[in-house]
């Protein structure tokens, strides 16, 4: 038995220079399509509001999860935007990007972004963020014989999973600039998500409305039915308040946000939505964007996992799109 170590906890309580500070909570930063801007989501879900546009005139943007930098496209040019919320936003051209993507996924640590295009059937990684962002070689996925349907990255972006649908559909794994390794045959894989530790890859199988769990180390897999969901469209691996691994699931036409417990292998929480969710996108420490805004009057719907699973709206942001950095 280790002896008890008595520690003296010392806290600087100097009245001359208080170390504690107060500020307003910022849930995260997000690309707002209707206003074509990068904005902060100020406050926490339930009392959050859109902040003013930090960068305007952005045709597409993607913010690194829980970070203050992003990849953006302006007039067809790719930019690396940093310093969001700092009062000093900077933009730097990011050369070598193939084109404006349909979307982007990030590694959990925010150092790698995978740009992808469903229509163009390609992916391209941007690594080295935030200090030295660089675009890697663009990769055309037509060689795989299917159409890209999902992309996921692990903790540090070293492993990238893609899903293609079609007669030769399936899930593939690649490491940076390496060959695509087929992990599973699947005609209609809809969504992908690495577990928080990167050991597993979760696949949403649209063919059977099932959740496939692929162990990366040995490529074994298990399939779990998503009973009760009729139209799952997105998944995101996370943990609950008990720090247990869960899969957050968004189901489209049945307007449901669900929490699937990997421990109990069943849906533990179902939240009925008054809107149709469009995806799951990291925003805050305990929140995801559940429904993106398509027009100015739309709110941003958030799925908050703490203190308990709940869905909140962020009121619609005001103002039309404009050019420039605010």
């Amino acid at each position, binding site marked *: *038995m280790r002896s*008890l170590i008595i*520690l003296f*906890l010392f806290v600087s*309580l100097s009245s001359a220079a208080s170390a504690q*500070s*107060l*500020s307003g909570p910022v849930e995260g930063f997000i690309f707002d399509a209707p206003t074509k801007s990068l904005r902060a989501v100020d406050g*926490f879900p339930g009392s959050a509001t859109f902040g003013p546009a930090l960068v305007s005139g952005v045709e597409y943007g993607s913010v690194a999860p829980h970070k203050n930098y992003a990849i953006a496209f302006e007039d067809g040019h790719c930019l690396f935007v940093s310093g969001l919320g700092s009062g000093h936003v900077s933009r730097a051209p990011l050369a070598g990007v193939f084109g404006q993507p349909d979307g982007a996924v990030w590694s959990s640590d925010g150092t790698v972004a995978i740009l992808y295009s469903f229509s163009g059937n390609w992916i391209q990684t941007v690594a080295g963020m935030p200090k030295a962002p660089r675009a890697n070689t663009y990769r055309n996925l037509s060689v795989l014989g299917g159409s890209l349907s999902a992309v996921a990255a692990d903790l540090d972006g070293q492993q990238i999973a893609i899903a293609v649908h079609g007669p030769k559909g399936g899930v593939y794994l690649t490491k940076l600039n390496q060959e695509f390794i087929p992990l599973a045959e699947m005609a209609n894989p809809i969504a992908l998500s690495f577990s928080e530790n990167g050991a597993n890859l979760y696949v949403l199988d649209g063919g059977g409305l099932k959740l496939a769990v692929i162990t990366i180390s040995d490529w074994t897999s298990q399939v779990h039915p998503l009973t009760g969901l009729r139209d799952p469209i997105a998944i995101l691996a996370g943990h609950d308040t008990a720090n247990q691994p869960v899969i957050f699931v968004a189901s489209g036409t049945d307007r449901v946000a669900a929490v699937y417990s990997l421990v109990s292998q069943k849906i533990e929480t179902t939240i009925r939505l008054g809107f149709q969710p469009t995806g799951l996108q990291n925003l805050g420490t305990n929140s995801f964007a559940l429904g993106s805004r398509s027009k100015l009057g739309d709110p941003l719907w958030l799925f908050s996992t703490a203190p308990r699973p709940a869905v909140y*709206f962020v009121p619609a942001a005001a103002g039309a799109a404009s050019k420039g950095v605010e």
Partner: protein
Amino acid sequence: MRLQWFGRSVLLGAGMAALGLAQTFPLQMVATSNGIVLTIPNGQQIPFAASVGQNQIIQVTATYAGSGKINIPAIPKVYGSNAFTATLAGTPPLTLNPGDSFTFDLVFRPTSTAEVTAIFNLPFTETVPGTGSGNPPPVVSTNAITLNLIGTSPSFQVSYIKDGNAISLANGGTMVFDPQPINTTVTLTVDILDNGSATGQINNITVTGKAFLLVGRPLLPTSVPSGQQLPVGIQYTPTAAGTDTGQLQITFGDGTTLSVGLQGTGTAPTLVYTLVQSGKSTIVKPNGTIPLPDTNVGSTSSLVVRVQNTGNGSITIGSISTAAPFQVTGAPLLPKTLNTNDSFQFTLTFAPTASGAQLGQLLIGADLFNLTGNGLGSSLQFSYVADGVTQTIGTNGVIAVVFSPVQVTKTASIPITVKNTGTLPAVVSNIAIQGANSPFSVSGTPPLPKSLAGGASFSFTVSFAPTAATSATDTLLINTTPIPLSGSGTAPPTLPAYTISGPSGTVAPNSQPAVTLTLASPYPVAINGVLTLTTSGTLGSDPAVQFTTGGRTVPFTIPANGTVANFASQGNQILLQTGTVASTILLTPSFATAAGVSLTPSNPPTLEFTVPAEAPVLIAATVAASTANSVVLNFTGYSTTRSLTALNVQFTAAAGFSLATSQVTVPLTQQATVWFESAASQGFGGQFTVSVPFTFSGTPPTGTALLQTIASVSATISNSVGASNSVTSPIQ
């Protein structure tokens, strides 16, 4: 003593009167002529007047006024002029006893118009018994009737003046007037001159013939002294072309008569109008009708009108005129004089601009002609019925379709009839209301384009649904014909009661409740409304207090005949954020029709609820940064009082370790005041993140970082109201 006898003033012999004083003439004489009886003395000058060849007889009756006897031995004698003769009644010798009479005639028969004189002498003796004593012997004296005879004779000469020349008129002659335009008058003067030696008498003057008239006729009979003349006028007024005759008759005092024929010629032009069309000629008379051929609207047809003077008088045409749709071209320069047989022509054109019968008039000088033509084409007529009366647009002052006042939310409809009153088919291609967002609308129109035969019609409906309590106008277009529309709206029905359902009383901060709005009963028209959110309180306004749609106003609609409000087309409920600042939140609705007529009651019911001032709430505790022996912890939460007093932190040692000091209270009053009074905090309401660095000191086991000895941290935070819930975060 002067007598008037036979027009002559006669001075009865004053000399004879003087003589009479000296000797009394034994015969008393009385002259009689033409019923006039006059006592004449011996030696009297007796005037005679008679026309040449005519007799004037004066019978003298002498009566013996003496006391003896008169003996007339022989017939009388007349000395001087053969124009006088005398005849004695009886055969001399004649003896007259006292009181006896005898007569003799004096006859004047002039043979010339000159004045003549003669003496009448009739000797006689008178035996008068002597007077005195002694049987005186009778006294015998000789004497004679002596009369001075003067004879004159009137003579008339009749003439007339024409062209300044005197033209004699003899009995049986003719007085000729120059050709005279009909209906005009000329007067010639007739002079009746007495060129004789005696005053003549005119008993009568007459004129016959309907074209002739005697003017200046004096009172008749009248005398014309010798050398004087009597003028009268003969007026000629022909009323028709052609010869006029009459007669002038003058009856003189001597019974003679002068008869003169009167002759004149009325002159008049006669215009003959001939229509020439397609080689065919037709005569038309004034006041007649000139038909023009059927002509398509927009086209023309024409004919030639020839004007010829076939009369015996000239005429001047001053003007030729007509009016649309008829026109005159090619007319000569006017005024134009047409003598007999002269002519001119012009073209008469028909250019209809509308279909149907067209009427007009052509005026040539004073001659009027009726023009007719038929425009071939279509003509659309528009009408509607109001209060049972058909109103035809464009007639009787009807220029618009007028609706009676209509209450906002209601609709009135009027059927409109389109009729082709023309002769050719009409095509209706467009029926529309001109204005955008008009309260007027059309319905029931046939499929367009629609061909409408002549005489055919169709109907459709124009509706008026006023959107405001004011007058409204617009234009109905049928093809391109604008028909004004007019109507007025009256105030809409009162809005029914309504209920705003949502949070009430005290509501939890940081919540997102739903609100609905429902009418107690349906409203007949769609309602546009706005729900407005206001906050009040002493701690400022939390910008997080908004509707889902952003901002503090959200539009809603309630469909016609519905009761449930639809918010921003997103459903029948709207979510709002209550924020994190103690305040009173008030929801106030406003209502209006689609056109903006306000329906909001004067004191609209509202929904009010309160976010209370309460103890803070912690949302999360997170490790913001850490080193081997330090950690920065973030505590996120909200305080509706916008104040904090202290943060109480409790560290929990990892298994196998214990902490000498595990609880720390961090005073926050001052920093919280600075934060919540700062401009930066205004955008966060009562939200905060307290960031506190903690540094640990101690001696952990080798290979163990100091921070690894701490498992987790829990914290509460407090304000003036109380302490918050506890949040926990693992340190590792």
